[in-house]
């Protein structure tokens, strides 16, 4: 049995999407910049994809710039704004739970003449609008806050921050990589100026993303060259990938409500099941409406995350963890630490992210196996000794 519960890391490509892409790899392979019929058929499909993407976020097609993924879109949004507005100001606000694509980019700017304010979050992993308000300075040029967090699924008060940014005339960037296709997004209602999305999290291909750039918002390109994407992003367009992304957006729009219902049910079953079956477990992130329908995140005390992952993997179950050991860094998840977890507990966290294809049976299988794994690792753990001794006493 192979059970994939890591959809926040990446998703399989929908077969319908993959089949469509194939056509553009082997038959309609023209370069969309070319004058001839091969070029024109590619160009037409490219523009249709742009409309499909725009539709899902409430934008116009002209406001969609395709990139090589969410990371590049985040970089384009942040560096592009900083370069465009550097004469206006040097202050950038972001949150402490952003994805590395935002945090590292902000820090890069921080080392190159910009000022950074990093807003904290509460114990649910949600940022307070009040804190953003307090951080605003006369020279603030950019606020970058994610829509939903990739580790704990916490949904941020984007519309309210958007209102605030608008009142102060500050460019507002939102990383919506994890929320796209899971909860509704409307860039107009949310007052967003720049919005990052990525294809491979919504059953589209890897290596494709987009940045929504509100009409009138100025941005300096990150990649220079042939002037594709209205000079905002040069490079021969990845037409098959973009067309796949467009189709994936269309499908996501059609299936969002059903997907959310299905996944919320599995999510709650899994979250409750773990708490019922395993002692010394902490659920990370908010409950109910403030949480993505597909995210489960728990800390399992006295054991380490990578060991849990490896053990699950041997049973065919794919998950992810906030353990430092899975990231190659020394510290565990910056998100869990920001939510107030101590290192020791953060190391033992697991994220299960659900997808369209997951079933109740798969969750049952996981709920049957996980307690055994935890038991085995705890018996091996020197940290668990105290608990055993307490129990024996």
């Amino acid at each position, binding site marked *: 049995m192979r059970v994939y519960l890591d959809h926040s890391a990446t998703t399989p490509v929908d077969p319908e999407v993959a089949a469509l892409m194939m056509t553009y790899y082997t038959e309609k392979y023209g370069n969309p910049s070319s004058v001839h019929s091969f070029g024109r058929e590619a160009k037409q499909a490219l523009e249709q994809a742009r409309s499909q993407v725009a539709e899902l976020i409430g934008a116009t097609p002209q406001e969609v710039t395709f990139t090589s993924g969410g990371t590049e879109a985040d970089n384009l949004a942040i560096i592009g704004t900083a370069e465009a507005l550097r004469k206006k100001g040097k202050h950038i606000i972001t949150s402490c739970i952003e994805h590395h694509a935002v945090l590292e980019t902000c820090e890069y700017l921080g080392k190159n003449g910009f000022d950074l304010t990093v807003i904290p979050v509460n114990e649910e992993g949600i940022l307070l609008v009040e804190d953003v308000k307090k951080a605003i300075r006369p020279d603030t040029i950019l606020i970058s806050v994610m829509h939903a967090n990739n580790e704990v699924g916490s949904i941020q008060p984007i519309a309210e921050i958007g209102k605030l940014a608008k009142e102060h005339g500050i460019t507002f960037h939102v990383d919506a990589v994890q929320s796209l296709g899971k909860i509704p997004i409307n860039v107009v209602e949310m007052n967003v100026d720049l919005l990052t999305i990525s294809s491979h999290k919504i059953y589209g291909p890897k290596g494709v993303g987009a940045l929504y750039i509100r009409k009138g918002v100025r941005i300096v390109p990150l990649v220079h060259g042939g002037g594709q994407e209205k000079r905002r992003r040069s490079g021969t367009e990845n037409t098959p990938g973009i067309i796949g992304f467009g189709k994936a957006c269309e499908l996501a729009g059609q299936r969002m409500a059903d997907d959310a219902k299905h996944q919320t049910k599995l999510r709650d079953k899994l979250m409750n099941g773990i708490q019922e079956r395993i002692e010394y477990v902490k659920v990370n992130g908010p409950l109910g409406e403030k949480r993505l329908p597909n995210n489960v995140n728990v800390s399992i005390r*006295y*054991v*380490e*995350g*990578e*060991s849990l992952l*490896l053990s699950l993997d*041997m049973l065919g179950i794919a998950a992810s963890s906030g*353990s*430092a*050991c*899975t990231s*190659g860094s*020394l510290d*565990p998840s910056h998100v869990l630490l920001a939510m107030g977890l101590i*290192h*020791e507990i953060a*190391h033992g966290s697991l994220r299960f992210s659900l997808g369209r294809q997951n079933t109740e049976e798969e969750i049952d299988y996981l709920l049957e196996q996980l307690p055994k794994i935890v038991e085995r690792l705890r*018996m*091996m*753990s*020197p*940290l*668990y*000794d105290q608990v055993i001794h307490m129990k024996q006493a």
Partner: protein
Amino acid sequence: MYTEKVMDHFTNPRNVGELENANGVGEVGNAKCGDIMRIYLDIEGDIIKDVKFKTFGCGAAVATSSMVTEMVKGKTIDEALVISNAAVAEALGGLPETKMHCSNLAADALHKAIEDYRNKQQKKE
């Protein structure tokens, strides 16, 4: 990522547990870093008669702990002292680069346990 040997030692770790009658115990790492290894030795004369470990940590931490216990069982203290972290990693067929520093401490734990044994012996004397 991990070699087959690492996965074998992670899945079926040798010598897990505590030794009631340990006369040398060594612990390295801390929970903050995500790795703690504790090694229990039962030494008679110069010989490591029994060894057990408990580890909180990633796959590499568990596997190196298990490996080192296999490597020293029945060995003399002097033989045990020349075992390095690198030698443990090598015995496992290598470790990923990122694991070489933070999770490859089992030999350190062993050496600490021997040190603990020697300290205790000195006190007895």
